[in-house]
């Protein structure tokens, strides 16, 4: 089921500018940097959160708390197809877990992920966060919103809206993991022929 239709929809330059814009927007929302923490969802959300935090520190001169969240244990489909996602994580040479090196109590938490799709990952992430404490507020920042929500979840900060069909795949590629920055859209052979 490899993609036969592959198209770069966001280049490295555009992607860099988009991240800068999101960083500004998060700060612009009149938030106290000391009360603000970014929590990225593994794997690419975590890298994005660290990039955003770095930029926000440059803009404000203040340190921004940043952590990483793994939501495998909170998925709603552990014994169904979602276990494949869990399995592909477990097959990685070095699996990463949750790392929140600060108390999230009474903080404004900005969840960061690369692609917002069904919303189920975000639901799981919110559940996971509440097992670590009681934030005063949770916001959501995503690089791409591709639609097809299955839950009443909406992002507060969006890099790009990329309307897609179910059979397409949005791949956010980041230099930290993939060697380069870009967003590509893939469609399957079945998708092209139908």
């Amino acid at each position, binding site marked *: 089921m490899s993609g036969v239709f592959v198209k770069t929809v966001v280049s490295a330059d555009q992607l860099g500018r988009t991240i800068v814009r999101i960083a500004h927007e998060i700060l612009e929302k009149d938030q106290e940097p000391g009360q603000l923490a970014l929590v990225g969802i593994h794997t690419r959300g975590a890298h994005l959160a660290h990039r955003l935090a770095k930029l926000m520190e440059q803009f404000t001169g203040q340190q921004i708390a940043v952590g990483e969240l*793994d939501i495998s244990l909170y998925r709603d489909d552990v014994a169904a197809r979602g276990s494949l996602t869990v399995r592909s994580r477990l097959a990685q040479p070095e699996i990463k877990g949750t790392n929140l090196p600060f108390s999230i109590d009474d903080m404004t938490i900005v969840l960061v992920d690369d692609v917002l799709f069904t919303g189920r990952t975000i639901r799981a992430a919110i559940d996971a966060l509440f097992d670590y404490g009681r934030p005063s507020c949770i916001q959501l920042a995503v690089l791409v919103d591709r639609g097809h929500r299955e839950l009443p979840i909406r992002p507060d900060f969006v890099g790009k809206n990329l309307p897609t069909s179910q*059979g397409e795949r949005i791949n956010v590629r980041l230099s930290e993991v993939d060697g380069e920055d870009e967003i590509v859209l893939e469609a399957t052979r079945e998708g092209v022929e139908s």
Partner: protein
Amino acid sequence: MNRNLLSINDLSREDIESLLATARVDFLDLSKRDIKKVPTLRGRTVIDLFYEKSTRTSTSFELAGKRLSADVINVKADSSAVGKGESLKDTTLTLNAYRPDIIVIRHPHVGAAAFVARYTDAHVINAGDGMGEHPTQCLLDIFSLQQEFGDLSGLKVAIVGDILHSRVARSNIIGFQKMGMKVTLVAPPGLLPRGVEALGVAGQRAGTRSSDRPDGGRSGADLKVAHSLDALADVGVIYLLRMQKERHEGGNFLPSLREYIARYQVGLRHLSDGKKVLHPGPINRGVEIEGALADSPENLILQQVEAGLAVRMAIMYRLIVDSAVADAGAAVDTEAGAAKPAAEVKNIHAVG
């Protein structure tokens, strides 16, 4: 992982590394949170079926199941229909009618866990079958050693004590060698199983049984045998076993316990060069382990208990997840894109 965990031989070295990585990353720190529970196995049923006395194994399996949000039922043989003469087969069939997802079984007879697995659809975890195996203990021991030493390749370990009656020893002799460790068995001849050298990796490769020489036979073998604590000089880890007096009835395995203590009790004086001591518990102070050593930070006994919880959570989680993966097929999907046919590929456009 396979469908069940009956023997440490059900797992390859890669399986063990992957399983223990899950335990380390996902479960070890869970106990440090205020909320020590994850919803992963919500709605699942775990039955712990214990035909032998146990403190740490039964509590840690119960806690592991509960912290994964499964419903956990404990069945103890002495307070169940087993006391009324029900056979293991009938008990298993009865419990299976409740459609449990996992059955954890501890039983005094070798092969009991494999027997249960024949009569249930649940995943079966062997929590000790007589003098057979104790694979979850082996996994938590490997985990504890990894936490202390990192990579275990080449690490030398001496297993000291009542090896003949020890299912822990049987699993660990196999498991430690799988991880690349060099194992020496230290015990009086009466407490060693005959032909135990055949469990050596090298012995198995050569297809020969080693001789009865004190060094374990062929030079270069991974599994050695010694009858004196002098063999502890060059090891990094001392793994102590309890004298299983309850299994000594009707046999003459030792000249006397006092002689055993004089020759084989391990104490602080045997520790040097950062040697660490493990013990599966329960310990008998003053028998296999000197009191001062039992109270010393040089032993990792409480780390083993802590590891047991994380490792058992990982085992339950992986049995369920891995079998679900097998059922769902080989395809891999991600949150970013499902692999369903697309309808409107040509209408792709980015809206910035």
